[in-house]
Each structure stands twice: as C-alpha cells, then as structure tokens.
C-alpha cells in the first residue's frame, strides 16, 4: 500500500473521524521503516505512476500486536474511569 492509499484508507474506515494531517504520515512511515516494522519498495500505481509501497514486516506485526494490546488496556482503563465518573453523576 502506498502513502496515498493509506491516507484514503484511514479516512474511509474511520468514517472520516480520523483525518490524518496528510503530510505528517510520511515522516512517521520513514521512522517505522527505520525501526524495521515496515518495509518499502518502489512500484507502479494503478494509474501508471511510480509510487512507494509499504508492507508490514513480521517484526512490525509483533509490534502492532503489542501496541494494540497496550491501546486496549489504555482505552479499557479510560472507559472504567469514565464509567465510574458517569455512575457518580
């Protein structure tokens, strides 16, 4: 998937709630690549233009799982705090 696809994809599946500031995606991608979580290669897009394609690596998949887990814990905790606050009110 190239950067543009990722932008559109995030917008679509988040139903336009999460709008990435389009440019800031790229430094993030490059940093993730340096960490070895994703790999990249140049390819040709559907409309015959050169584009950079990114793919999740096994290390990235592991990292993703860990981060997801972490995120769930955080949201769960936040939810509990909110539930507590709601119950009080």
């Amino acid at each position: 998937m190239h950067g543009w696809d990722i932008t559109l994809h995030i917008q679509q599946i988040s139903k336009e709630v999460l709008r990435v500031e389009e440019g800031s995606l790229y430094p993030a991608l490059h940093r993730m690549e340096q960490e070895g979580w994703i790999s990249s290669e140049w390819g040709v897009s559907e409309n015959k233009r050169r584009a950079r394609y990114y793919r999740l690596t096994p290390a990235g998949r592991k990292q993703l799982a860990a981060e997801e887990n972490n995120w769930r814990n955080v949201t769960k905790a936040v939810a509990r705090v909110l539930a507590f606050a709601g119950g009080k009110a």
Partner: protein
Amino acid sequence: MGWIRKARALFRREALSAELEEELRFHVAMREELNMVEGMPPALARADAQQRLGNATLLKEKMREADLFTFAESVARDLRFAARMLAKHPGFTFLAVLALSAGIGINTAVFTAYKAFLLRPLDGAHPEELFNIYHSRPDQAYDPIVSYADYEGLRDNDRSFSGILAVTGDELTMTDAGAAPDAAPSLGSSVLSALGFRLPTTMSGAAEPVTAALVSDNFFSVLGVAAIRGRVFTARDAAELMERPQLLISENYWERRFGHDKSILGRTVKLNSRAFVIAGVTPRDFMGTFTTQVPDFWMPLRLEPLVHRNSDLLTNREKPCCTVIGRLAPGVTPARAQAETEALANRLLSLHAPGTEGSRPLTIQVAPGSPFQRPQQDPKLKLIVAVTLGAVGLVLLIACANVAGMQLARSAARQREIGVRLSIGASRARVVRQLLTESALLGMTAGSLALILSFWTLRILVVEAAAAMPIEWGTFALHIHPDGAVFAYVFGISLLASVLFGLAPALESSRPDLVSALKEEGMRFRLPVGNRGLRNTLMAVQVGICLFLMVMASLLIRSSSRTLDLRTGYEGRQVLQVNLSFPATLNYPPAKQTAEVNLIRRKLMALPGVTGVTLGRSPDGGGLRTAKILPAGRVIFYTFVLPNYFETLDIPLVAGHVFSVGGSDRLLVSQSAAKRLWPGEDPVGRTVTLDVSDQFHVEGELTPASHPYVVAGVVGDTRGVLLDGSDSDKIYLPLLDSQFAEQPILVRTHDDPRRLFHAIGGKLHAIDPNLIAGAMTLDDALRNTPSFVIARCSGLFATVIGLLGLLLASAGIYGSVSYAVVRRTREVGIRVALGATRHDILRQMVSETARPVTVGLLVGLVAAAIAARLVRAILGGLSGLDPISFGGVSLFLLAIAMLAAFLPARRALRIEPMAALRCE
C-alpha cells in the same frame, strides 16, 4: 539494523533526497486528481492538495532525519559556524591559541623527548622481539654484564632465542687517518655555551681518540640492520675477520671525520696501531644498543686482542665484559625464554672457578629490549619524570584556566546571541554542543600549532647539540619522530584542554534566561551572581595552581643555584687543567712518561703569563678515591698532589706547613677533615695510616703507602660536587716523581687562559706529536660535572616552566579580576550617586577580589608544602619549606591580584556617576 541502513544512506544522499521529493509529489498529484474528480477547478485543486499536505520542506527535513545520520552534518555545520565566530574575533582567538599552544607545546615537547629518550626501543628490525638478558643475584638485583665465555655458552645453546648478541664500548686511539674536514662553527655550539656547557679544546697531534663498539659477529644479523655502503660482518665471516681485520664506520663519523669521502670503503685506518679495513658504513644515527651515542666504529669483539695486547677478555670466564641481548625465537614466550636461559646459566655456573664472583647462584631476567637497561625501575628517574610531566601539566591547566576566563568574559557579550538561539527552540544541550565545538576547534588549532613548534624546536636542538659536541666526545643522537603515540597524546591533551576550558563557560552561558537576554538592557543590570561564583572559583584555581607551580620552580631554581655557586675555595678561572694521555700504541715505559711530563712542565712554566705549574687532580672530585683513616676508622677522600698545588690553586694553609718536595711520609688535611677526625684537637703532628684494602680502586692505580703518615698541616676547604658536601673532607698525599704521568697538569696564568690554549698546544706538539691532550679551566671542568649539568638543566627547566606559568597566570588573573571590576562600573556609578564614599567602594572591590585569591593562595601553599616533601630527594639539601620561595611567590601573586582589582576600580570611580549610569 536501522543504523546500517542509515549509514548506508549517507552514500546516496542525492538519490534519497529525490525519492523523498517524488514520494510527496505523488501524494499531491493523487489528491489533486481526486479533487478534480470531485469537481474543483484545476487551480484550486492543486492549491488545496498542497495545503493539505502541509510544510513540504519541514516534512522532507524530518524524513531525512529518520532516514540517515544527520549528526556528522550538524557537526560540520557547527564547525563552520565556530570557525566563523573565531574569525570574527581575531584578538580573542589569537590570544587563546597563543596561551593554549604554549601549554600544549611544552607538554608535547616533554612527552616527545621523554619518549625519544626513555621509551626508545633498541635500534633494529622488529624491536618488540628483542630482549635484554641480565643476571640478578640475591644481593645485587641487576647485573647486566656477562663474560664473553658465558656469552658464547648462551649463544650456542639457548634455543629460545633465534640469536643472541653481545656488545661493549671501548675508547681507542686512531692514528694516520689524514686531515679532518674543518668543522664550521654551528648554532648548536653557541646554544650550548650559552647554557653554560664548556667544550674542551683538544690539542691533538697525529693521534686522536675514537669511540668504538665492540660487537659479536652476529650483532647486525640479530638486529636486522644492513650497511648503507659496503657490507656488515656476520657470524660466517669469523675466519676472514681474523685473517683480514675489518670494521664498520658510522655514517655520522664518516661525515664528521672524513667528510663523506667516497673512497672510505676498503680504506685502512690504524686503531691502537693495528690496521683495520673499513668494510661498510652503518646508517645515520644508528646506535644499536647504545642510549644516546653513535659510536665512531663497530669492531668485531673477536678482534679485541688486537687492540689490547695481552687482554684475556675473550677467554677469561671471570672477567665480565658485555651486555647481552637476544631476539626471541618465533612462538617462544619471554617467560619460557627466561626459564630456559636460567637453566642454561646455572649449568654455566659450574664452569666458573669455585669462590669467584661468577660462581655465585643467580637468576636470569629477560626484559623487553631497551637501551636503558631498566628505566622503569629507577625510582629517582621515575620521580623526575613524574615531576616534569606534572609541572608541564600544570602549565597546561593554567593556560586552560586562562582561556576559560576569556571565554567567560566573552560569554557575557554573547548572552544575546545564545538567548536568541535558545528562544527559537534550540535545546540547551544543542547550544552547549555548539560552544564545545568552538572550544574543540580552538584546542585543535592550538594543538597542531604546538605539535609543529615543539617538534621542530626539539629536532633543531638535538641536531645542533649533536653538531656542537666535539668530535672526541662521540656523536650524540636522539630519534625525534612524531609518531602515532605523540599524535595521540597531543590530540588527547588538546581535546582534554578544550573540555577543561570550554565546559564551564558553556554551561554557564547557556543557562536559559531568555527574557533578560533578549532585553539588551536588563542583562547587564542584573548582577550575574552565578557567573561571579564561577569566576571566583576560576580565579582561586588559577592562583592556586600558579602558586604551586611557582613555588616548586623557585625551589628548584634556588636549589640549583646553590649547586651552581662557584665559591669553591680555590682558584678556578685562572687555572687550566691539561689532561695528557700517552696513546697505548706508544708503549712508553713509565720512566719515559715521567721524563716527558717533567719536560712539559718546564716548557709550560716558561710560557708568557704562566705563574705556576703543578700536578694533581682538580678539587671538583673527578678521580678522587676514599680510604679508611686509622686509628679513627673514618672513611675520607684522598688525592695526590705536588707541594706547590696549594699555592697554585690559592688554597690557604691554615696551620702547620706544606710537605716538602720528595717527602713521602707527611700529609695535609682539609679543615673539615681535621674537624671530623679530631674534633676540637690540634691535628698537626698526629700519625695516621690509610687503609684502602676494601675501598674501590682501579687495577694498577696509585694508592697510599702502607706506612704511617704524619699530619704536617691543615689547608682550607675546597668544595666538591657531592650534594652533602662530604667531599670537602679531604686528605692530600705527596705525589712522587715516579707517579707524574697519571695526574693532570694544572697551569696557573694571570692572562686570559683561553689565549694560552694555542701556546700549550704548540709546545706539546713540539715535544711529542703523538700525545693526546685536552684542556679547560677548572671552573669549566666543574661546570661539566654531572651535578652541575643536572642542576643547570633543572634550573633552566624550572625557569622556563615558571616563567611560562607566571606569564599565563598573571595575564589570566589580571584579566579576570579587572574584567569583573570593569563590569561593575555601572554599579559603582549608582552607589556613588547614592552617597557611597570612594574609600568604601575601593575597599569593597579589593576585598571581594581578595577572598578568592586568598583561598587560592592557601590551597596552593598547602599543596606546595606537601609536594615539596615528596620531591626532597631532588632538592639537594634545600629545606622543602624554603621561606623565600613560599613567601615571595605568595606576596607576588597577591600583589598582582590586588593591583588588578585596584586599578580598574579607581578608574570606575573617576567616572562621573551620571556618565556611568548612562553609558550602558
């Protein structure tokens, strides 16, 4: 893994930059397309796409940071910036580089000299494989000398070494070598004489002394050194060497004595009247196993009997002769070699005659090869090295404190620049890094300058000193090479210095205080409290180190000037000492030698200006021997003199009378000897016997008669060269006619003694052209004694260090004190306006300066007192708490600091208060 990619990316920076560009362009193009599909007009579609992307330049910058190492780039940027800043302030840069290169330079010089002199390996290929082999016995830790027979035993049987060589030095007489090229007066000789070294004037005829290294046949093959012309001899040449005696000449002597004469190979020279053919020339400055001297000739040891008739050096197992050095065989450890050699040496013990020195049990030591047998074990040498390195280290510290002071003063002026950088988002670490880069650039510039300066200075000194030494002294050489270790050392101390003088000011000036920094006014009005604390510390440190250094320097200078004091108790300036030697080749019988000396004495007496001629050794100690005086049992120096010795040298007769010519049972004692032998009693008329049986003597030398002597009189003390003064206790024995030949001739003149040199030379040549003679005044001879040379060198060193330290420190102290006061001009204005009296303000300014200075002085005094105790060994009798050194230096530094506070404070007071307030 990331960093590999990052590093690799450095090599394709251009391509990477294009890729980043393309990636972003693709995104914008896609967005633009989408916008157009959604119905935007083309221009708006493009602008919207750009806007949604954000700041493209910043994005690219961030992606670059992720993709490659930008550290090196930022360092380069910092360096460029630092260079610009330094170039913008040439005055500061010049002074800082000057101070630092003085500090670094003196360190580099000392380190280079130390390395060239003491850490030098043996002269040969792969010196790390070469090892010194020496004996050690329970009562004598170190005995480097092995007999030739034992050496052969080791050489032929020791398998742990691939080769073992033996070497010893010798002095020979060369005859019929033809005329020598004229020596041009060199810069070096004037430098040496300015330092107080006096070179003897030689008046030689056809014979001239030469130095030779007697070496085993395999010497050059073990060292792995080839001749630059002709060839070296090897172990295979033994038979040929015996048949046709040959030797090698050093390139240095070839140049100095034969002027690089191309026909040198195959030429015959006569050494001790035996003919040798010169077979080759060894490389310039090649000294093999010697420390600082290049021998004139290299002669096979097996030819030694040719030059010393009746010598049993090669066959007598009890006669130690040689230093032994081996090249370790491949794969053998020094420990194994030591074990094997020791086993072998113990087998050799049984070959020694029972009861001899050589038959006593021993162990063998195998130590890394060095021309110094064991520099690392000599405690006094170690102390001197430590003191020297410590002293120059302190000079560097003072230089650093000095530059730190300048940096600090400058940082106040740079506050605005730094404030701006901090406020637009630079982190403090980043600013400190930038300031340190500037310091490092300064340090490195100074370091490279220092390296070049010190290297060439040393080089020129060594070459010139070598050229200035008289040819009879052999050739002096020291290998001064700036090698990896020296570079690393200079680099290291430059960097260390940069951090030392740069870190504190950098931390201080990057302390974030944005608001006041940006407001030009505020900054200067606010009292920079923290800054002042740092400055006070710096001042105290500078004063302390400087005091320490100068006290030590002045202790050294005072102790050497005590040694150099020429109040000796005898006339030294007007008396020439003429040393005669009868070349061994002449083989004169003693009667002929005596007759010739008597003839010379008569002829010299007849020279114009000469008022006295006598025989005897100079009182400066050369060749003095000791004897046990019975019945008192004390050991005292004695010497043989003619009766007119005292009159010629102006040594006063205190009591009794001088012994008469030819008398053999009378002697004279010096005052202090009389005091020691018979405290409080009259020595004249007493009878003593001199027992020399267990005192050191050379074979065949003149010793006191065994019959009792009567004390005829007492003469004044003369000063010798021993630091404890024990050589002022002296006994004078009458010299007999048959003993003339061995004593120097002393000639007293009322003229300029230098003018006499030529006349004496002419007379000697007329009497016997084969004589070798050298002459110098007694004062000059005294100046050349080791204790004088050491005292002069250490005095010189201390003076240089002390002056350099003083210069740097007083400039530094004055600079930082007066700057601190100047910065308070405005404060002074306000206080005067508020009604403070001049007296109040002066007092406050001076006392505020006095505090850190006093702290520094106290710390420095305590440190110096402790250090003085540690180096007592090299102070030579001077009390470690010498009041002149301690008090004088303290007062001097205090005065500088007070002056530095007082002068600007007074200037500040002269300014009209209103002008002071307005001026900033």
